[in-house]
């Protein structure tokens, strides 16, 4: 490795990373200047900064170059950087309300988030193990902080502790593997590793053990079974926006690094690596889905679901080692799966956050009862996301499955496809439970509804006031919303509301038409802040765009996969 003059380096290639790094400091400094609710301002600055970063990254589209041999700037890393920054933007949008409600010091939060985005971007760019490791640690450190950010929350602390211990443990194992690999190969650069593995080194026991440990470390990052066990706990304990951040961005970064490593360094070992990945994929998706069946906590459910989703993406990686354009197609499949998962997760967690902000941070599935009445938008977002995760059409999940499965089948791994599809059916089972709770059950607390709430609803429905106003009147604090539908003969609320119905007039058939109809009740709608609304809307737009017209995304992924496999 010749030393070279730093002056010859093309720093423009790293312009987006510089922007993001600057953004960290901007956010930190702003936190010193604005207090309290000013965090929204910081958030918007972070969004703007990341947007600028996306712009800068996009301007590098088509570049295929390496920076000092340790980073690689090509469409693959560009795309992933854009994904990560977009994810960052999404998470920031999701964070406003949550931060305000649950964090004691929301200001610095955004800086850590941006630092995490930087780390992920560098992971996607790294083509050298040390850089990859440092980038990974940057992401990990940010994540540790972010996970334990809700300082007064026991679960958050616990999650932080578990995460940092297991994260350090896994990175130590990963590092040990790296050190052995360095011993066997003499370099940490991916191309050098590949060159060495082409020789007899590939069969050396140390190199094998090294790969074993590196695989385990990366598998930890993408939460593949059996290295997944931290993730349900961490996801459950972390502040909800961070759960979203971890489950989508951190995982995607793991994939970005894994794919790059596999393609650039491990290619000569394709047989065993493919087997290992297929093995992990099967375990991951099956266990993720099966265990998710028994979850009662929404965030934990999403954690297991995200494990399963990683399993789907892994089957794409398993197909990397096929001839011709199949490998490229497979990488495209994985990338598109990750993009789809990004949108989906943001939408789902957006909905969950919208609920949690109003509902005191509750997170049990049963707490979501009647969400479709209280907050149709949030319920719709969650439902769309869950359907998408289950691979239902119109939503992105269906299309990404195609992109993923077609190359896998072409690579003679049809049985993997079969297992994956079967798993998505299993997943539908628990997604549907959530949807049922949201749409079919009555909101909690109907029986405890106090008289004043009934009066308020009556008054509102007589005077045809705006729903939100009623919401303010009734759902203030923890009072929940009545449901006159759920049980047609049931609740006190419904009975005392009957006289709201307009007198039925007209011929007998018109009376019969209105007979038995519940009075059209205006349900108080939970408020959702504009930022959260924007975030969810963007995510939903992504879901539907990918689900209905995926061609633009496919084109982006096409360039990225070309770059990934470029010699």
């Amino acid at each position: 490795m010749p030393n070279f003059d730093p002056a010859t380096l093309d720093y423009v290639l790293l312009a987006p990373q510089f922007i993001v790094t600057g953004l960290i400091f901007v956010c930190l400094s702003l936190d010193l200047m604005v207090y309290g609710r000013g965090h929204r301002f910081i958030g918007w600055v972070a969004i703007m900064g990341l947007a600028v970063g996306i712009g800068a990254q996009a301007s590098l589209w088509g570049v295929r170059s390496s920076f000092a041999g340790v980073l690689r700037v090509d469409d693959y890393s560009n795309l992933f950087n854009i994904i990560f920054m977009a994810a960052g933007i999404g998470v920031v949008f999701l964070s406003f309300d949550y931060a305000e409600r649950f964090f004691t010091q929301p200001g610095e939060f955004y800086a850590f988030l941006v630092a995490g985005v930087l780390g992920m971007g560098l992971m996607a760019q790294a083509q050298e193990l040390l850089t990859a490791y440092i980038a990974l640690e940057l992401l990990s450190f940010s994540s540790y902080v972010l996970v334990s950010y809700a300082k007064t929350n026991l679960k958050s602390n616990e999650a932080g502790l578990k995460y940092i211990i297991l994260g350090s443990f896994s990175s130590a194992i990963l590092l040990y593997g790296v050190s052995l690999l360095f011993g066997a190969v003499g370099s940490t650069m991916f191309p050098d590793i590949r060159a060495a593995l082409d020789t007899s080194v590939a069969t050396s026991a140390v190199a094998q053990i090294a790969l074993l440990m590196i695989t385990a470390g990366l598998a930890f990052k993408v939460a593949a079974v059996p290295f997944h066990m931290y993730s349900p706990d961490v996801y459950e304990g972390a502040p909800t926006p961070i759960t979203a951040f971890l489950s989508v961005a951190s995982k995607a970064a793991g994939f970005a690094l894994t794919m790059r490593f596999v393609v650039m360094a491990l290619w000569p070992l394709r047989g065993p690596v493919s087997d290992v990945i297929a093995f992990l994929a099967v375990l991951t998706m099956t266990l993720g889905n099966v265990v998710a069946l028994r979850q009662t906590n929404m965030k934990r459910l999403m954690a297991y679901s995200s494990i399963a989703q990683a399993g789907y993406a892994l089957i794409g990686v398993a197909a990397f080692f096929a001839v011709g354009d199949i490998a490229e197609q497979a990488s495209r499949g994985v990338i598109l799966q990750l993009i789809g998962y990004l949108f989906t997760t943001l939408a789902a967690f957006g909905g969950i956050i919208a609920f949690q902000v109003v509902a005191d941070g509750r997170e049990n599935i049963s707490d979501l009862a009647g969400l479709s009445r209280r907050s149709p938008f949030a319920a719709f977002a969650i439902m769309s996301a869950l359907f998408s995760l289950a691979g239902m059409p119109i939503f992105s999940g269906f299309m990404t499955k195609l992109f993923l499965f077609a190359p896998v089948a072409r690579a003679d791994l049809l049985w993997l496809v079969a297992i994956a599809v079967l798993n998505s059916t299993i997943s539908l089972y628990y997604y549907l439970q959530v949807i049922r709770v949201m749409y079919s059950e009555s909101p909690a607390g109907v029986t405890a509804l106090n008289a004043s709430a009934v009066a308020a609803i009556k008054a509102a429905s007589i005077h045809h006031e705006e729903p939100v106003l009623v919401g303010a009147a009734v759902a203030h604090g923890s009072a929940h919303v009545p449901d006159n539908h759920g049980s047609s003969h049931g609740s006190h609320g419904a009975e005392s509301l009957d006289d709201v119905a307009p007198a039925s007039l007209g011929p007998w058939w018109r009376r019969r038409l209105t007979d038995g109809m519940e009075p059209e009740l205006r349900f108080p709608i939970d408020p959702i802040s504009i930022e959260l609304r924007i975030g969810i809307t963007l995510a939903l737009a992504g879901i539907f765009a990918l689900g209905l017209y995926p061609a633009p995304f496919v084109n982006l992924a096409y360039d990225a996969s070309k770059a990934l496999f470029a010699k």
Partner: protein
Amino acid sequence: MVPIEHIMVFTGALFCIGVYGVMARRNAVLVLMAIELMLNAVAINLVAFGTLVYPGQINGMVFAIFVVTIAAAELGLGLAIVLRVYRMRSSINVDDIDLMRW
């Protein structure tokens, strides 16, 4: 100097002792200590490979420096979190930390 195999056996042992520590210790601080042992094994490995197998290779040393740095930082952050946990629940035994499971 000794053959590289011997150093590898030594670091392997150190590493596995660390692994054992993570699995056996109840006290979160001790767990973090065990992780330090693991990272030390890594650093020794890197330096040894750099010096003995690839003489003149500077990469191993550089890597080791980073590892030591990051390890220290990790420890610091870890301890902060441990402190936070202790404040909230007056225990740092990892088997008391079981709010979330299953």
